[in-house]
């Protein structure tokens, strides 16, 4: 019935291929329009296909496209169920908006068509990731989004920092993929298949909390940690901000980085029977959330604040899926997609209006110059800070409530979450106050301006969702939960505690958030701007020096090992041995040439010597002596 779902992937893929070859000929505005139109189209196709899901009548359906690796039983086939439908809608929906935004933002770039080639490629890859019906296809999408991310981060490759950031992102992701891949090996060795249907339907055969399932889930987690920039593989995401801002919004905030959460939610059948792994997931999430929130406070670059904020919010999602609150995790994934995309696009608009300036200390007072951007950012600010009734409040509080409700050590995680919520409110307020309030601190001669319609329109649309999307899953009306029911029906999904507890918890978190905002207000508006300089702030800005730590402990020793392998072990050791053998043979030959005197009579002597010896030997052998 929904066989046509392949079109959702095919359209952006077609766009990517077409624009790759003909983009230059199509030229600037049109190539962007084609790219955007294809994604919009694919959004509407997905919407049509998802209609049964809204009605609650969607039966999960597999669409076989073609056989791929028969020896592993892997096919290229798609799974259309509420979870993938929801992810598809987010990806194509937010993706479409960001495409449209991109036509304005990338205006005048010499490689404008190429930008849309890559964006379309990304959409297609991300859809493969979410629509695939096996771990193998997920892995394919997983790697392909890594490729698009690489291409887009280093889009401005003439800038060495951009090129380096792209490379770093890909390599760090590959470290995660390494774990993922080993996870796949164990899955195949265990189930003899990589398809979701086989694996999940048989997951219950595995011993709960047993070594196999724990190993599988922990290895999958490694993959998720890499893709979703959780500790300890979080280092690539802040650098990824070197890419154009729409890319940061789409890939490094709304969609790709949430793939880890999607993967864990998709593998809920496995994670739900691996309590240890789930605990690890939640712990990683909580620690990352706190860590990134603290680091975000020290950032001066507006995009880096948002990057750390993304890491932090992803931490919440990990906390949720770790607490087996898969619906809550996915819910936060969705609301976060809206408000974080909005924040990034808003930040992009600011940067665009400021002619490329990204340092918040050189902004200020922009709310009058960019009213639309300001208003939409305001919505996003409220949403991420968790102020009701904006979207972020509902999803974040559901996570916190569930974590608290699990009791025991989970309360510690809840506490971390609450602290993070306060920090989030604080650093977001700091961003807003520094950017939009106060006196202008622009460089001389800078004329900030509002962005064109193509950029503000997506902002407005996203603002609507950032404000209202939370309402789909409130304690009053659990639409999303019902929507996702078919996906998690056999799994025990954690729910918020009953009674008044959630309300008290919500009150606490709102209070904390308001406290954060209030403190920021005092610090950045009421008083003269504080001086945030010095070694401590630098240390904070550098993310506690994690990058440098890795550089010293992994990269440099690794390089030293490689160099000693290449220039000592290989060149001198192995090849030295080879050449040594060659040299020894040559020496032997040189020694042998001494016998070659050139004197024919010496040769004669040798010949007769041989003759005598031969006759002697024959005689002795014949028994003469």
């Amino acid at each position, binding site marked *: 019935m929904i066989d046509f779902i392949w079109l959702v992937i095919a359209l952006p893929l077609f766009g990517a291929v077409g624009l790759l070859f003909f983009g230059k000929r199509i030229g600037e505005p049109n190539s962007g329009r084609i790219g955007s139109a294809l994604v919009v189209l694919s959004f509407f196709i997905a919407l049509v296909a998802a209609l049964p899901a809204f009605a609650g009548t969607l039966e999960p359906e597999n669409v076989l496209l073609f056989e791929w690796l028969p020896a592993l039983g892997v096919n290229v086939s798609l799974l259309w169920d509420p979870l993938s439908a929801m992810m598809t809608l987010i990806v194509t929906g937010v993706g479409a908006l960001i495409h449209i935004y991109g036509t304005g933002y990338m205006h005048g770039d010499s490689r404008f068509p190429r930008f849309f080639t890559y964006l379309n490629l990304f959409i297609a890859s991300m859809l493969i990731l979410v629509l695939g019906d096996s771990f193998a296809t997920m892995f394919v999408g997983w790697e392909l989004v890594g490729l698009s991310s690489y291409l887009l981060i280093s889009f401005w490759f003439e800038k060495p920092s951009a090129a380096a950031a792209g490379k770093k992102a890909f390599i760090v992701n590959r470290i995660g993929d390494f774990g993922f891949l080993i996870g796949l090996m164990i899955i195949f060795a265990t189930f003899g298949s990589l398809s979701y249907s086989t694996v999940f339907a048989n997951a219950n055969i595995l011993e709960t909390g047993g070594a196999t399932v724990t190993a599988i889930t922990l290895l999958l987690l490694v993959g998720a940690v890499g893709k979703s920039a959780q500790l300890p593989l979080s280092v690539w995401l802040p650098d990824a901000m070197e890419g154009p801002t729409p890319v940061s919004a789409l890939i490094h905030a709304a969609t790709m980085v949430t793939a880890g959460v999607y993967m864990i939610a998709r593998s809920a059948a496995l994670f739900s029977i691996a309590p240890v792994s789930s605990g690890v997931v939640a712990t990683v999430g909580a620690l990352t959330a706190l860590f990134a929130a603290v680091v975000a406070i020290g950032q001066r670059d507006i995009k880096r604040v948002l990057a750390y904020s993304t890491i932090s919010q992803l931490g919440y999602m990990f906390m949720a899926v770790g607490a087996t609150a898969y619906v809550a995790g996915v819910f936060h994934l969705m609301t976060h997609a809206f408000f974080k995309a909005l924040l990034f696009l808003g930040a992009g608009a600011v940067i665009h209006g400021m002619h490329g300036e990204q340092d918040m200390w050189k902004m200020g007072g922009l709310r009058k110059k960019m009213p639309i951007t300001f208003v939409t950012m305001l919505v996003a600010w409220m949403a991420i800070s968790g102020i009701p009734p904006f979207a972020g409040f509902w999803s974040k509080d559901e996570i916190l409530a569930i974590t608290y409700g699990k009791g025991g050590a989970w309360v510690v995680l809840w506490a971390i979450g609450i602290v993070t919520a306060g920090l989030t409110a604080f650093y977001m307020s700091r961003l807003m106050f520094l950017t939009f309030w106060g006196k202008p601190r622009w460089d001389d001669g800078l004329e900030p301006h509002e962005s064109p319609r193509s950029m503000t329109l997506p902002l407005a649309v996203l603002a609507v969702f950032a404000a209202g999307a939370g309402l789909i899953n409130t304690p009053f009306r659990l639409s999303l939960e019902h929507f996702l029911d078919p996906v998690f029906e056999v799994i025990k999904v954690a729910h918020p505690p009953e009674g008044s507890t959630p309300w008290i918890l919500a009150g606490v978190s709102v209070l904390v958030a308001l406290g954060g905002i209030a403190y920021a207000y005092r610090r950045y508006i009421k008083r003269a701007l504080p001086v945030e300089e010095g070694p401590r702030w630098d240390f904070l800005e550098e993310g506690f020096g994690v990058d440098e730590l890795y550089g010293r402990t992994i990269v440099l020793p690794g390089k030293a090992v490689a160099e000693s392998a290449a220039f000592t072990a290989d060149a001198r050791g192995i090849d030295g041995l080879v050449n040594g053998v060659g040299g020894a043979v040559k020496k032997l030959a040189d020694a042998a040439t001494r016998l070659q005197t050139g004197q024919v009579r*010496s040769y004669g*002597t040798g010949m007769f010597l041989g*003759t*005598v010896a031969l*006759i002697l030997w*024959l005689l002795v052998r014949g028994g003469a002596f």
Partner: protein
Amino acid sequence: MDIRVIIFIVFALAAVAGAISMVLARNPVHSAFGLLLTMFSIAVFYVMNGAHFVAAIQIMIYAGAVMTLFLFVIMFVGVDTSDEAEEHIPFQRPMAMILGAGLLILIVASGIQAWVNSRALTGRGSLGTIENVSDELFGTWLLPFEATMFLLAIAAVGTIALAQFAFTLRSTDGSDDE
């Protein structure tokens, strides 16, 4: 005493004397005459063994043609005795002596050995008259005989070529690498 014994002793002594004088003589011409003496003696032995045709060939080809060729070349090259003065390859002469003696002892030893161990065969024994030899040569051994034709032809061509090249090379390369 059998006359054949006397003939053998006389010509054996002559052959050995010729051989030794060939080796020892400073002058290559003397050497050539020494060899000539040996060959005559051997021809005599051929006759004593009934190989009349081979004996004739021995005289004609060896004593006649080959030795003449040698003498001719000696004349061409010149009688140079100076370079025989001293031996500069270490141990060459003692080694040669030892090897010669060793060879002699071993050949004799193996000859005795073979003689003792093998039983006498009875062949088609006949005299080496021209008729008999040609029967054999053009019958059983026709193919090898024909093959020698190629050998001789090649040798002739090779000799002519060498003579030719020696002239052309001389004009292009006069260097002495020694």
